[in-house]
């Protein structure tokens, strides 16, 4: 590690995610993973001559929504261009993309990293089309165009990332936002997220950027992290041994865990971008953008911070309600009815969720009302029932939907806080257990817990535990 500490990495990410639409970007073929090869194809996505692409409105909407979730500005006008190159997975010999007039620009993502909130700026988010999928055999390659024309959102970050771990945290935060917002399912197994990385290193504290190396071919976040760990180390080694780095493109090999240089790629201007004459500009009305804005959901980090602030929950509890949004929404219904939201969160997370898993029940099957949990918390907080009895009450209300007070009354679970009654139980326990009594008197403090347990047993769990401890101690010491 010491060899890298004199150097720092400068990392920018280009993240491609498939949008969650029913149909493709320019035609009505299904946007569907796993269909037999070349079954979701038509003249448009096969690039046959004479066809006319027509933009999928939902893809445009999701792109602008993603831009808003990433705190971007939405330019008044977006346009599609042709990026020209030859490759068998691109049948038209150009990819339609937004070049100089993207749908979203200048935003940012905030996320938790190493105990602080980090911000990575977003340069732009633009809409393009995915290409076909190629498979390589000994002598030939095979192409499946089912994926060609699937709407693809490219999110370009500024080079604000400084380590492999930070890149990993950024990608996870980005994914959470896109899944939360319904932009993309971000299913890595199905190749819905792919990353290109730009990374350079420079002596720590200097501001000039080193030679930029691009790494392609990463389809998992852990792959990105491993590739960056390898590549940063490699670049530092080259510089330390007096070598020079030149701008180039490398490919990550997940099997061998190394990056290797690819053939010199065509320079950006060689793509000969020009406006696609088949497509009209997209100039969303203010009303349209405002309608999209209504779909902006609370972001995961904001939700976590709000739960910690408004309900005084520890980070762990808040995270549970971020990861499981319906459960969090349910908790908020409960929290409205109790002065002790943390107590309510314990019931929701530890008891209710566990019982739901055990019994295979969903939130809609819960038989008691949300306020019942508040009532239960109050019964415990006011000392009316012991926490042990509360467990029994909860199990019962989960089963029957009966209110906590009704269960307490019916089962006679009201806590015994009457000193005389508790004293009677204590006397009984002391008389029945001379051994532990002697142990306690001989200095074995743990014996008191045993006696406490005996009293609780005699009272069928109803004796107020604090009072029991107090009385036992007084009797044994006195």
């Amino acid at each position, binding site marked *: 590690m010491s060899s890298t500490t004199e150097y720092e990495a400068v990392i920018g990410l280009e993240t491609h995610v498939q949008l969650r639409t029913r149909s493709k970007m320019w*035609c009505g*073929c299904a946007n569907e993973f796993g269909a037999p090869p070349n079954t979701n194809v038509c003249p448009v996505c096969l690039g046959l001559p004479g066809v006319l692409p027509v*933009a999928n409105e939902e893809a445009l909407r999701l792109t602008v929504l993603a831009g808003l979730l990433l705190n971007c500005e939405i330019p008044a006008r977006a346009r599609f261009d042709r990026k020209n190159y030859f490759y068998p997975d691109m049948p038209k010999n150009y990819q339609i993309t937004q070049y100089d007039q993207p749908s979203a620009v200048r935003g940012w993502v905030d996320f938790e990293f190493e105990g602080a909130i980090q911000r990575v700026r977003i340069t732009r988010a633009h809409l393009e089309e995915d290409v076909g999928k190629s498979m*390589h055999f000994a002598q*030939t390659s*095979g*192409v499946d165009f089912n994926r060609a024309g699937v709407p693809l959102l490219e999110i370009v970050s500024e080079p604000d990332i400084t380590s492999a771990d930070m890149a990993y945290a950024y990608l996870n935060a980005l994914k959470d936002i896109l899944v939360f917002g319904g932009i993309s399912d971000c299913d890595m197994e199905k190749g819905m997220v792919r990353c290109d990385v730009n990374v350079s290193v420079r002596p720590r504290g200097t501001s000039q950027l080193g030679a930029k190396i691009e790494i392609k071919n990463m389809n998992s976040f852990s792959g990105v992290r491993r590739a960056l760990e390898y590549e940063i180390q490699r670049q530092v080694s080259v510089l330390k041994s007096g070598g020079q780095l030149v701008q180039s493109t490398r490919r990550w090999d997940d099997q061998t865990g190394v990056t290797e240089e690819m053939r010199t790629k065509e320079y950006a201007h060689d793509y000969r971008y020009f406006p696609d004459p088949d497509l009209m500009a*997209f*100039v969303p009305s203010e009303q349209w953008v405002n309608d999209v804005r209504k779909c902006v959901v609370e972001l995961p980090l904001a939700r976590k911070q709000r739960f910690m602030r408004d309900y005084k929950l520890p980070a762990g509890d808040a995270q549970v309600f971020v990861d499981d949004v319906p459960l969090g929404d349910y908790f908020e219904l409960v929290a409205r009815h109790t002065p002790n939201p943390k107590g309510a969160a314990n019931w929701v997370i530890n008891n209710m969720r566990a019982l739901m898993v055990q019994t295979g029940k969903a939130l809609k099957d819960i038989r008691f009302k949300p306020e019942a949990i508040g009532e239960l918390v109050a019964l415990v907080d006011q000392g009316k029932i012991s926490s042990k009895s509360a467990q029994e009450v909860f199990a019962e209300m989960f089963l029957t939907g009966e209110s906590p007070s009704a269960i307490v009354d019916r089962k006679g679970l009201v806590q015994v806080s009457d000193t005389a009654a508790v004293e009677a139980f204590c006397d009984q326990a002391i008389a029945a257990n001379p051994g532990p009594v002697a142990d306690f008197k001989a200095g074995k403090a743990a014996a008191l817990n045993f006696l406490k347990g005996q009293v609780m047993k005699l009272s069928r769990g109803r004796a107020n535990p604090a009072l029991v401890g107090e009385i036992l101690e007084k009797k044994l010491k006195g």
Partner: protein
Amino acid sequence: MTNERIDIQHLTHLARLSLTEDEKQVIGAQLDDILKYMDKLKELDVSNIEPTAHAVPLINVTRPDQVERSLPHQDALSNAPLQADGLFIVPRIIE
């Protein structure tokens, strides 16, 4: 013919065209003529003319996100020089 503006060698590579030396001469000259014609257009004073973004004055041409019928599988592959297992087969792609 060599030309400062037209690198015919580079252009044929980008277009994946194989031209004879004679063709390169002829086409290089023709491309240069096209650029000269553009230069001629530049001489026009267009300061009072609004830029034309597109020949057709339309914006926001979209379609609803609905799945339509795709091509029958065999029709889709009917122009493929080679096919196997439902895939278009091409010369091996080497990077």
